[in-house]
């Protein structure tokens, strides 16, 4: 471990290790997730879903379901507001269904079994419509149309810098390759769940959301509520990874049913529903053309990507910013066609398109480096952006900012040293004997962070204990702990005095939520601000008691002291009880990054694989994840995030593809046994090695950077590059199945074993 001593002697809490402050609740089963909550008189809901990928509902009869004893409310698309869900084109229910699994009616009953039976009593007549599943097919003339304005979602986002055609003419070598990441499952252990309670005009909703305020916005729109009449609570959330970052239909369905029934309603998704209908990781097909000069510089890059958004997409999908923000490229063009098709909903997953872009870009860079006989790492180092390089401030590709605090080179060099990059076989696939071939690969990633609005409130009670409220959530990222550590550091109050209220829109100021590497930097700065606000109030209250000026005071271990005077001090609890009123501080920030300076969060992964050339099995022998983490707030949490994110990224090399039958559009493997997320046996956790590169941020609290998404990105590219290095077989589609590896080897050596009957 690259653990460093706390270099800043003034820090007492930040940069240490330690368990999560909510650990006891999580290991004793007392943490209440949405599904664990039960309200008096609560009903249970089930949703009726389309068996067709594209159809119009021409008739629906719910009378038999309504007559079933125990059924308290039945709703259909006729009862649903004709408003899109926030950030999406989808209505909560509609008479037009666009993917297998889209809900169009729902039942609330006294128990789930009754609700299930009622669903089967609803009679529906569909008019089936032609459907399309492939994004390129969907753009062809005559393709089935999902929406009146076509299948292309708005304008394809385009970045143009220089002229790629000219750049390719100038290049010494140009290659074009196609890469594909299919639609992949990206959910969490806890399926979506929502409980709706109406008290008069007021809606209170418990739900499993990353961004309670986005759900809040959706609910106030759907039901025309005032902000005050809507409260969203997501206290304990069993993982999110992006699938819960936007409002989803389940919350509105629960609220509609609860309103109709006049009783609280719980809608708990089953695993199958969660897989079919929860904004999963989107398919991307990437046409990558790259041109290089003999001096190893990248002259031109042209990226044409088809993004399969599925029927609907929670906010707009796309690739990441690797092409524009990670490498210096003279001539650059990226086109991203966001296409609607009749497969399941998709959304961002641990990086909006970052893992997919990383797979395409870092594969094609590896390919051209190998063709040119260059060391792929030297090639990266030649072209990566460094401090002072021009970089886009936004996502346009216009390099209008200046890069600062960039740790990419640190990550590459430290990762390479840890793995032993110098052991790499310079001639891929050569010199291997026996069935098992070893190889080394790498990939680089980056992402921004800390965007959007954030808020927090810190309250000091009369006994000196602290309650911290924020409306972003702790989805397993440890933010209750790290945010408390930030406040603890500012205040000089030990962590043991803290209690957090997370994910409650009524208790805390507006906050964009927990996604996009943003919570630690944005909510963190709001927390820092709120804590400083409190501290000033504490000093103002203590100053007369200690006969000192507020500016002379400091607080450590919950004791207010006059700086330089060992005699004059007073416990915080005493200050507070004498004050007789609690102290409330609040913090509200807008986007951590301002000005010309641009800060990114890079990382580099290195892997050694062993490819069994007879069975096609790929085994990870050693894996190094080196990430720029800014100032670590809690090293234990940093490492846990990086380790877990790395394995989750490796999972995409092994399985997790959602398979749809082209004949009827159904997902065939919507269960864990067939999607095959990794067990503890799959990637030996002991071979995952983490390097947390301490590289302080100019923007984050105490120099922290958000890092949750990045470890998920480079696995596919790093492993593909290592498989190539081991065998000479280039895999351009994930996951890397036995069939892919064996077929690749078979094509390489036509005489080998490809017996067919």
């Amino acid at each position, binding site marked *: 471990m690259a653990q460093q001593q706390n270099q800043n002697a003034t820090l007492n809490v930040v940069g240490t290790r330690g368990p999560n402050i909510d650990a006891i609740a999580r290991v004793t089963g007392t943490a209440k997730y949405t599904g664990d909550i039960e309200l008096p008189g609560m009903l249970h809901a089930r949703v009726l879903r389309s068996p067709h990928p594209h159809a119009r509902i021409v008739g629906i009869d719910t009378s038999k379901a309504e007559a079933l004893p125990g059924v308290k409310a039945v709703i259909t698309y006729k009862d649903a507001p004709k408003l899109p869900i926030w950030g999406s084109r989808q209505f909560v229910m509609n008479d037009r269904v666009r993917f297998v699994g889209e809900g169009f009616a729902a039942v609330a009953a006294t128990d789930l*079994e009754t609700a*299930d*039976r009622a669903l089967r009593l609803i009679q529906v007549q569909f008019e089936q419509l032609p459907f399309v599943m492939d994004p390129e097919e969907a753009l062809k003339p005559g393709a089935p149309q999902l929406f009146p304005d076509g299948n292309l979602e708005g304008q394809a986002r385009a970045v143009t810098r220089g002229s790629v055609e000219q750049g390719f003419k100038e290049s010494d070598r140009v290659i074009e390759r196609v890469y594909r990441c299919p639609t992949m499952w990206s959910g969490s252990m806890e399926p979506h769940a929502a409980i709706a309670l109406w008290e008069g005009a007021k809606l209170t909703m418990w739900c499993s959301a990353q961004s309670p305020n986005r759900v809040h916005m959706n609910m106030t729109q759907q039901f025309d509520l005032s902000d005050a009449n809507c409260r969203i609570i997501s206290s304990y959330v069993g993982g999110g990874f992006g699938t819960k970052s936007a409002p989803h239909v389940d919350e509105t369905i629960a609220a509609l049913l609860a309103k109709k029934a006049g009783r609280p309603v719980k809608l708990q998704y089953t695993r199958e529903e969660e897989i079919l209908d929860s904004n999963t990781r989107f398919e991307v097909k990437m046409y990558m053309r790259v041109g290089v000069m003999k001096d190893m510089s990248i002259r031109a890059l042209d990226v044409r990507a088809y993004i399969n958004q599925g029927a609907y997409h929670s906010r707009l999908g796309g690739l990441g910013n690797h092409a524009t923000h990670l490498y210096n490229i003279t001539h650059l063009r990226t086109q991203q066609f966001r296409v609607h098709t009749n497969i399941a909903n998709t959304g961002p997953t641990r990086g909006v398109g970052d893992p997919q872009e990383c797979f395409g870009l870092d594969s094609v860079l590896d390919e051209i480096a190998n063709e040119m006989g260059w060391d792929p790492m030297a090639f990266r180092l030649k072209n990566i952006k460094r401090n002072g390089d021009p970089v886009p401030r936004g996502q346009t590709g216009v390099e209008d900012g200046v890069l600062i605090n960039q740790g990419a080179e640190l990550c590459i060099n430290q990762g390479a040293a840890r793995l032993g990059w110098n052991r790499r076989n310079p001639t891929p696939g050569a010199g291997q004997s026996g*069935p098992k071939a070893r190889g080394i690969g790498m990939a680089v990633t980056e992402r921004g962070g800390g965007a959007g609005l954030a808020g927090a409130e810190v309250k000091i009670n009369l006994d000196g204990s602290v309650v911290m409220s924020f409306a972003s959530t702790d989805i397993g990222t440890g933010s209750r702990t790290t945010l408390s550590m930030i406040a603890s550091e500012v205040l000089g109050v030990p962590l043991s005095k803290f209690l957090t209220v997370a994910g409650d829109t009524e208790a805390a100021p507006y906050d964009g939520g927990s996604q996009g590497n943003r919570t630690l930097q944005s909510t963190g700065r709001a927390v820092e601000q709120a804590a400083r606000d409190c501290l000033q109030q504490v000093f103002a209250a203590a100053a007369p008691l200690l006969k000192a000026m507020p500016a002379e005071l400091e607080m450590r271990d919950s004791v207010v002291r006059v700086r330089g005077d060992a005699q004059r001090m007073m416990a915080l609890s005493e200050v507070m009880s004498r004050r007789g009123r609690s102290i409330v501080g609040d913090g509200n920030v807008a986007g951590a990054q301002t000005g010309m300076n641009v800060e990114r969060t890079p990382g580099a992964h290195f892997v050694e694989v062993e490819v069994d050339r*007879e*069975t*096609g*099995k790929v085994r990870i022998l050693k894996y190094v994840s080196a990430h720029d983490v800014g100032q670590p707030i809690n090293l234990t949490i940093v490492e846990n995030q990086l380790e877990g994110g790395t394995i989750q990224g490796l999972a995409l090399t*092994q*399985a997790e593809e959602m*398979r749809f*039958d082209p*004949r009827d559009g*159904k997902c*065939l*493997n919507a*269960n864990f*046994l*067939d999607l*095959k997320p*990794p*067990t503890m*046996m*799959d990637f030996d956790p002991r071979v995952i090695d983490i390097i947390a590169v301490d590289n302080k941020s100019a923007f984050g609290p105490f120099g922290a950077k958000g890092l949750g998404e990045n470890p998920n990105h480079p696995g596919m590219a790093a492993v593909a590059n290592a498989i190539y290095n081991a065998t000479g077989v280039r895999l351009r589609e994930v996951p890397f*199945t*036995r*069939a892919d590896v*064996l*077929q690749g080897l*078979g094509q390489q050596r036509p005489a*080998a*074993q*490809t*017996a*067919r*009957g």
Partner: protein
Amino acid sequence: MDNFSYARPATLRDAASQLGREHNRVMLIAGGTDVLGELKDHLREPERLVPIRHLKELQGIRPSRTGLRIGAATLLADIAESDVIRQQAPVLAMAAGKVGTPQIRNMGTIGGNICQRPRCWYYRNNYPCFKHGGNTCFSAAGENDFHAILEGGPSFIVHPSDTAPALVALGATVRISSGSRERSVPIAEFFVTPRQDARRENVLQPNEIVTELEVPSAPAGSKAIYVKEMVREMWDFALCSVAAMVTVQNGVVQNARIVLGGVAPRPYRAAAAETALVGKALDEASATAAGEAAVQGARPLAKNAYKVPLTQAVVKRALLSLA
């Protein structure tokens, strides 16, 4: 899951008397790991479940004249960890240890393991295929990565059991009871090809219960291994598995049993591979030849040709590990 009638029978005879004349209206439940999934997914909607795991007649691992008698309700975990099975029929213990997870092995029984239904995702998604009474196998022109390369058609399911190939290799006998009548079926004849019966995977009648497996002791001096290739390292059904048992005397293979799982609609006895091996020294050349012979006649579908070289390699390595 829809509700059903349920009463614990006191004896095997009582249990059998609850069974009807057609499959699926009344179903047996032993470990339940497969049956409950089928009920929850509405693949089958029985009126009644007949629990049998508690029946005394189905318990225990006992010595017999030729080897062991294993009650059908014996837990897979107990088989995997049984000293006597490890000694007398090690390939069965190995295979049982490869089933699912520790939890699954703590729940599932050997009888249930050999009677489990296919994992074909068309079957599991309730497509009207042969297994559901229809006349189509949707995998044939569909997503068939995990389907049969041998003995396929008209259905292309693969038999999912791990213990079944081991039991075939051992030459086990299945004891079956209808309460009033008992019969014994050699395990190789217990399983059926789709051409024999595309609806079912075995010869069990609706009113019959597997009560016991008679497992002959592995031949003296024999060595055996069960190898299972999966997508995951664990908690997966076989892409291809092999139960191999060989007896070598004076450096020459006297006797070989090679049975494949995960590649055919029933445990597949690779007779050609056995023939290729007997009379030879067990070495790289003979193991390779046996691997090639094992997939003789393989007819892969559009997406599962990889299973051919995979099976060759797995058979070869399994055999070499016994050398």
